[in-house]
């Protein structure tokens, strides 16, 4: 197969300092005009946004680029499109390249959708006749027939993105570079975009997809590259690369938890008999970011006055060991205790699980079965067993509301924990425990 995109030992450097960035720009411009090659060595305040990256794509190949923000994905994509020059190495592209770096690049909000389509097509090198030939298809795909003669400044952001995507994918590129733009529009349109990309893929268009979504990468791309701080960490089949990236994120979350203020080690391996040791105070290993998120109301109300409840303690146990890192589908035990400063008559305790970004996932409450409803005073200690902990890998937060009737006695983050992969690919929020049986595989 003929190569469509060859990237050989490519480097790109940027400056962290805004003034230096411009000063270096003038120097680089003079160097270019004097015929000098760009120097690869870093100057003061500079860093490599892309460092020694190489790969090759044949015609019809699809490649996913994953990595954290600032890992060099967009910079690499821009160099492949010739928008910026590499500082080292070389990039060879065969065919017409279309980059979807920002949907609707060059659109003018004062002009109608119709005029902007013609302008965008002209930027791609199409003349008026060629644009007329695909115009109806673009409008039909964007579902904007009714508004195509309205100024696009009056469009909603979703309509704007739909038009931008529609124009870009209908311009018949040989190589399509897509930069994290598939989260636009409503779900129906997102699905439509994916169907279109699959169709383009079948037509033999080579494409590079930048995405933070492992689902997009695995579904759309045979191969993937994981970039970290500009360096190529892994190149290979997309499922393997995505898994390696997720493991890396798990490890990073784990290290973050280990660096919490009290210096407590996450997931220390302690002997079985230590299980009977006192439960550690709740909320001892909460990161500053989570404390701030809680204070900002991301996990709803916080009531942490210790006027009616004191000495709140909570710990997770996997098997016999206390843990801050839970492996997906592990058996998990949660033990908690607190002391009531005055007698209460209608006590209830909930354990509310949130994803770190504030998505509420599940609640375990003593309201089911009225476990603590009767009159209480003094020390309360409970244990909850979860047979199969099926949250997908990520960082989570546990809120613990303690009520007397409708009133809070206490409500605060009691635990921040990480779920890591057990090796199975998982998506969305939950990974159901399941058994899969293929009943027949009969050839036609």
């Amino acid at each position, binding site marked *: 197969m003929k190569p469509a995109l060859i990237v050989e030992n490519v480097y790109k450097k940027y400056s962290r300092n805004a003034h230096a960035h411009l000063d270096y720009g*003038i120097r680089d411009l003079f160097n270019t005009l004097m015929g000098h090659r760009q120097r690869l060595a870093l100057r003061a305040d500079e860093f490599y946004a892309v460092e020694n990256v190489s790969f090759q794509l044949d015609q019809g190949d699809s490649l996913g680029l994953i990595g954290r923000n600032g890992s060099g994905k967009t910079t690499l994509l821009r160099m492949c499109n010739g928008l910026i020059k590499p500082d080292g190495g070389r990039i*060879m592209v065969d065919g017409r390249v279309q980059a979807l770096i920002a949907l609707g690049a060059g659109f003018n909000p004062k002009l109608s959708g119709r005029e902007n389509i013609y302008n965008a097509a002209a930027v791609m090198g199409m003349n008026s006749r060629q644009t007329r030939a695909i115009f109806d298809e673009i409008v039909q795909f964007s579902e904007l027939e009714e508004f195509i003669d309205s100024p696009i400044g009056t469009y909603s952001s979703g309509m704007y993105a739909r038009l931008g995507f529609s124009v870009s994918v209908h311009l018949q590129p040989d190589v399509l570079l897509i930069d994290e733009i598939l989260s636009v529009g409503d779900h129906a349109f997102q699905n439509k975009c994916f169907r279109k990309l699959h169709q383009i893929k079948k037509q033999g268009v080579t494409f590079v997809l930048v995405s933070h979504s492992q689902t997009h990468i695995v579904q759309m791309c045979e191969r993937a590259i994981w970039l970290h701080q500009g360096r190529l960490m892994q190149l290979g089949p997309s499922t393997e690369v995505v898994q390696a990236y997720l493991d890396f994120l798990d490890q990073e979350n784990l290290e973050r938890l280990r660096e919490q203020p009290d210096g407590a080690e996450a997931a220390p391996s302690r002997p079985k008999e230590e299980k009977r040791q006192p439960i550690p105070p709740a909320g001892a290993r909460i990161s500053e970011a989570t404390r701030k998120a809680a204070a900002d109301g991301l996990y709803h109300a916080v009531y942490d006055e210790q006027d009616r409840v004191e000495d709140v303690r909570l710990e997770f146990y996997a098997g016999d060991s206390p843990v801050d890192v839970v492996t997906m589908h592990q058996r998990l035990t949660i033990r908690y205790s607190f002391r009531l400063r005055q007698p209460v008559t209608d006590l209830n305790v909930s354990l509310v699980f949130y994803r770190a970004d504030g998505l509420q996932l599940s609640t375990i409450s003593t309201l089911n079965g009225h476990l603590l409803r009767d009159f209480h005073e003094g020390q309360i200690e409970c244990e909850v067993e979860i047979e199969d902990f099926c949250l997908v890998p990520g960082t989570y937060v546990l809120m613990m509301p303690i009520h007397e009737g409708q009133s809070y006695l206490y409500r605060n983050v009691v635990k921040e924990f990480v779920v890591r992969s057990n090796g199975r690919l998982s998506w969305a929020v939950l990974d159901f425990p399941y058994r899969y049986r293929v009943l027949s595989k009969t050839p036609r």
Partner: protein
Amino acid sequence: MKIYTAEAEVLQFRHVWTEMIRGIIHSRYLAYRLFLKDLRAEYSRLKFSLVWDFLEPLMLALVFIALMRSGVVSDRGIAMPPAVFITFGVLLWMTFSEAVTMPLGVVGKSRHLVTQTSIVPEALILSVVWRVAFNSIFRIAILAIVAAALGSLSPVGFLKFLLLFPAIVLLGLALGILLAPFNTIYNDIGRFVNILLRPLMYASPVLYARSMHPLLDTFNACSPVSIVLVNLRSLATRNVLEQPGLLASCVGMSLLFLVGWFIFHVSIPVVAERA
């Protein structure tokens, strides 16, 4: 196959010129669309769009005619009515000034296109040419009307004026595109040029035929913009070339334009990341 490297393109001289010429040929339609886009966006909130373009030079001409009639401006040392002299001078200077400043800001104005699409640099240059040419139509029409109304129009000379008119645009463009890449990184260049153009207008034979200062006369005798402006004015009104050095100026400005174009072409990928 396109190859992007860290090598300076300047060294691949023949390849760059081939790309530049190819760029001009292939980006004609795109340049026209970019010109239309800017024009329509500018006119989108105007009810009498073209009227304003026509009114600006017309008002200037009427003011100078009124000043001439009231005797504020005299016809000392000039072979045409002072209103014709000044109107030609001011409107030609406006064209030159526009041809310098428009390319200076074209990369910044088209930032989204330059940073997010692989736009051909020549399309940006051609779109500026379209715009300057469009604005010039109104000025040329007013010049013809004023010269005819005050009995100073030479029909044959005016045809020659039309043929030579692109020279003043070319001169402005040459300076504009030469400085545009630097202005994209640091806007100080544009600020300085804008400040410089104002006193330069008074130093040039725009309002006065003779400066009465030998240093300025020497400057105007050597300045290509003065040479082209004086000859354009004398051609349109009297069908004569008044100041020597026109051919040398035209050759010089053509070479300057080619240098400016070359620099603009090879600089765009370097300045795009800082646009």
